[in-house]
């Protein structure tokens, strides 16, 4: 499929500032990305019409391609909000974290990752992860320490914690999907609708196919009787709502004043 060589766009200072600032975040939600884009236009090219975000990003990506980096768009697995991260395409390891964490911390993450991928629910319990602390490479780590390391992962948006259990943050999925698919080909779960890596989702109790929650929401949006796309059996789960950025913005006016862009993350 060598066909189309994508036309390379041109970088201007608007794009460069955008990239520089984007790089200071691990992952951003779409509204934050728009805000960043508007800021960069304001600084460099006040009078220009702001490009459509999709085109803007696509333009930058065409230039980044030769560097094996990409601004990748994804969605959070729990409520389908669009997120963006700058992802390295050339490595197939979790080396992006390598500069921020020690060897034993990286290994702890690897162990947690494996448990999460293997699990049925996409969550690994704190207890199960901590029980593996003895097997870690590098400096010996105590369980107490490991708990703090897990919190570090949550703060830097590699993991999400819910009621003492851990799953992958959307950022980790964006960054590591390829690595995960290659490293755990048997354990890996795929969404029946979008065919991407699936960590959390719903599954058909009859035939076992799985779907992301936002994919379920979209697929069954206007159906009164949801049925499995594969085996046609009645879909036994609650159908979530489709993510609506408008509703978000109304609710989020109070939220964004609490949570500024300067969240603590790597």
């Amino acid at each position, binding site marked *: 499929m060598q066909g189309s*060589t994508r036309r390379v766009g041109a970088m201007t200072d608007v794009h460069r500032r955008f990239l520089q600032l984007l790089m200071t*975040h691990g992952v951003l939600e779409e509204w934050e990305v728009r805000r960043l884009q508007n800021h960069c236009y304001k600084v460099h090219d006040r009078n220009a019409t702001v490009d459509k975000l999709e085109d803007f990003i696509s333009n930058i990506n065409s230039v980044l391609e030769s560097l094996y980096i990409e601004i990748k768009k994804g969605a959070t697995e729990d409520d389908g909000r669009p997120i963006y991260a700058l992802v390295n395409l050339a490595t197939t390891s979790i080396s992006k974290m390598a500069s921020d964490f020690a060897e034993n911390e990286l290994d702890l993450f690897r162990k947690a990752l494996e448990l999460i991928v293997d699990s049925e629910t996409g969550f690994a319990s704190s207890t199960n992860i901590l029980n593996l602390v003895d097997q870690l490479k590098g400096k010996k780590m105590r369980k107490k320490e490991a708990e703090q390391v897990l919190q570090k992962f949550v703060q830097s948006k590699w993991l999400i914690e819910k009621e003492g259990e851990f799953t992958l943050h959307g950022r980790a999925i964006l960054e590591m999907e390829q690595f995960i698919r290659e490293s755990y080909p048997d354990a890996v779960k795929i969404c029946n609708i979008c065919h991407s890596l699936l960590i959390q989702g719903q599954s058909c109790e009859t035939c076992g196919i799985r779907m992301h929650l936002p994919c379920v929401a979209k697929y069954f949006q206007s159906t009164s009787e949801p049925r499995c796309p594969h085996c046609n059996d009645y879909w036994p789960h609650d159908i979530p709502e489709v993510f609506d950025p408008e509703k978000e913005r109304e609710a989020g006016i109070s939220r964004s004043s609490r949570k500024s862009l300067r969240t603590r993350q790597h």
Partner: protein
Amino acid sequence: MRSKAWFVFARTPPPMPPPPPPTPRGRLVQTTPNRPVLPVTGASLRRLVMLQKPRSRSRPGAQPGSGSDRDLGASGEVPSGPGRPDASQGSAGALSPSSRPAQATPAPELRTQKQLELKVAELVQFLLIKDQRKIPIKRTGILKHVIRDYKDIFPDLLKLAAERLHYVFGYKLVELEPKSNAYILINTLEPVEEDAEMRGDQGTPTTGLLMIILGLIFMNGQSIPETEVWDFLRRLGVYPTKKHSVFGDPKKLITEDFVRQRYLESRRIPHTDPVDCELQWGPRANLETSKMKVLKFVAKVHNQDPKNWPTQYCEALADEQSRVGPEPSDPVAAS
């Protein structure tokens, strides 16, 4: 002559470049086979591919003529052959095919364009990550962790990486000091106040403190004893022995971190007891900011015109003139 009452930090635009974030560096494995090679680097890479010579004999492959003192230094692996390349063969920049005679059989070390592209990508990411720490990147580190067996074309790879860093990210790769074999990234974009709200990291807070110290040094002449710096900072609630809510350990920050990052230089003042050190601007400070910028910062803090300090103003002007002249040692100065 030192200026009087300073006050708490002005919220000034930090002249320091925003530290780039963790970008990945790691073992590169070729991934999808269908990645198109884009023309922007394609041309330079193609030239590089064409110029690869068997490493075992005769002229070194794409090893540029070592005549230019802007070059990055021979990698030390110039193969012994019938004489060294003469300087007229072209500098680090010129990879024109016409300067090379046709060679015989290609060696097994010939690398594909894809491999070269990946190597440049790896180098770019390495430089971005390393610079994030604000520690100058040593050439030996680059060779050891990234270049490895591509040593023979190291200068070209570095030049390509520098081009990409400049074109794509707006960062300029410069050598910290001439012949230091250590590099830093300089932001070619002017930081803007609102950038601080858009950032995802905490890069900025220490910059204010650094600016103040650079200001103290400059307004005092060329250097200032550390004790006088603390005398001043105490008035702002910053103490060498007390943990600070924003700066953490200010003593470590100033005497260790800023020095290691080459923003400051510290020298023992002899015959002082307790030991006192003299602080001066470090090479990175000169590269990332300027006397004029620092003077303007000081002036703004006092709500005055920079010209109200005539000595410093003249010095800053002279510094500006010298900047317009020859570039600070730039290993990949544009052709």
